[in-house]
């Protein structure tokens, strides 16, 4: 197997996903098949080839660092699952 159930569980935790045992098993098999297929890339000669992260070459897009109108606080808080009138609220951290 290309990826073990323990690895899938660990990576899911890194990505903040809780998987139950059934999902871990199903994903290990499906993701294992996909990763095996990805191995076809290992045979490609890429010696000295630069990577592409964007297909269109653009230089940096600069702008003036000026003050502009932004979302007001009420609008920004409107979609929050939990907020008071000023803040996003989260479960207790410490």
């Amino acid at each position, binding site marked *: 197997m290309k990826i073990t159930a323990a690895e899938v569980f660990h990576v899911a935790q890194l990505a903040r996903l809780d998987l139950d045992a059934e999902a871990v098993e199903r994903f290990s098999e*499906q993701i294992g098949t996909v990763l095996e297929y990805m191995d076809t890339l290992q045979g490609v000669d890429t010696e000295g080839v630069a*990577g592409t992260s964007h297909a269109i070459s653009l230089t940096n897009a600069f702008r003036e660092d000026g003050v502009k109108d932004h979302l007001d606080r009420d609008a920004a808080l409107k979609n929050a699952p939990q907020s008071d009138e000023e803040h996003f609220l989260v479960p207790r951290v410490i």
Partner: protein
Amino acid sequence: MKLYTLTLNEARNLLQKKEITSTELTRAVLDRIRETDDGIGAYLTVTEEKALKAAEKADLRIAAGTAAPLTGIPLAVKDVLCTRGIRTTCGSKILENFIPPYNAMVIERILEEDGVILGKTNMDEFAMGSSNEHSAFKLCRNPWDRTRIPGGSSGGSAAAVAADMCIGALGTDTGGSIRQPASHCGVVGLKPTYGRVSRYGLVAFASSLDQIGPLAKSVPDAALLMNLIAGHDPRDSTSVPEPVPDYSGFLEEGLQGLRVGIPREYFEIQGLDPDVEKAVRGAIETIEKLGAVQVPVSLPNTKYVVAVYYVIAPCEASSNLARYDGVRYGFRNDSGAGLLPMYCSTRSKGFGPEVQRRIIIGTYSLSAGYYDAYYGKASQVRTLIREDFNNALKGCDAILAPVAPSPAFPIGEKTDDPLNMYLSDIFTLSANLAGIPGISVPCGFSGEGLPIGLQILGRHFDEGILLKIAYNYEKATDYSLKKPEISPGK
């Protein structure tokens, strides 16, 4: 005359000659949605009241003689584009109740011209899928055969155009999500050059690949929609400050002397359906008869395209989707056990299985010890794929190819086999990896009566050449005029 069957250009002429009003047209399309969509599932949200108000406003503007090209035209918008005050779900439970506080740039453009937004269309969750079966809310069916998928991820937009439930539509294409559903539903779909259309307000899936484009009933309709949405926008730093031509202006040019490349590797793919091959080869012959010259070209790295894409896109997705943490917007699931468990249960319950799979593949490929072997290697091979296209397009003006290896497949056929689903994207992924534009135009039907599309690929910012070839071909054939017969009921 049934107003909902009008093309965008026909509707525009009638509106501007004042032979119909936008209110009449919008009502006709809304009635059509009401009568038809229960059996299709193209829309996630229909904004009837807002649409009728917009139509009324458009009628006043037309009466005042200040109409813009899209004034009064009823359009469908994929539910991945932010619409202020209108729920934008991205096909996901995690955004089920998200109401954006701002509009995407393309929505601003529609509203500036007083176009009419009918509603938000169904899609694969976060645009991840080739069948629309990964929508968290409901199935979308192919209007030509309701036991089959409409394609994805812009399946709702393609089905809405095909079933006359809008006059035109917007979709997005990260690996074929406009072109493949357009092909499966028998409509025209254009993915512009990366950077041609601002991604501002488009919910991100894979930021180096995502691009917004039109789905339409005809090639001239797609050209008009491109005129609306193309252009530079400083709010998207990857938006390109190239001048925007009048895309409708390319349509009347002929094809004499144009060189069209035929990529050998595309016709050697295992599993290429004979009906698809026949239809595409027939289209190539027609285009040759119209004056173009065939040139054999080679895209030698085609065999690596699926592997490269399905490393890079999940990597970018796993990073983009980290923002869904149940804090600032979207769904939250809190068991009271603290912050970290809240993140985990929110994301596990909010994302569907395909999105979770891709997040895991992406996180794994980016993690220490695997980065070079997966993401690093894939981005190098992406360079080779780009060079393939640069080289091929030196010897020709455009490339002709299939869109998908087979016509629309039956619902459920590939859902348990992600790799098999990914492999069906072989012909569309490379345009996104190389950043080039691509169009799908109807070019025939399978033995079972399912639509087949021809794909035309071109150089960066050569949308005009694609539209010209597609329009000359469309005029010489009648495939775009064919409509599905939709039986009533679910």
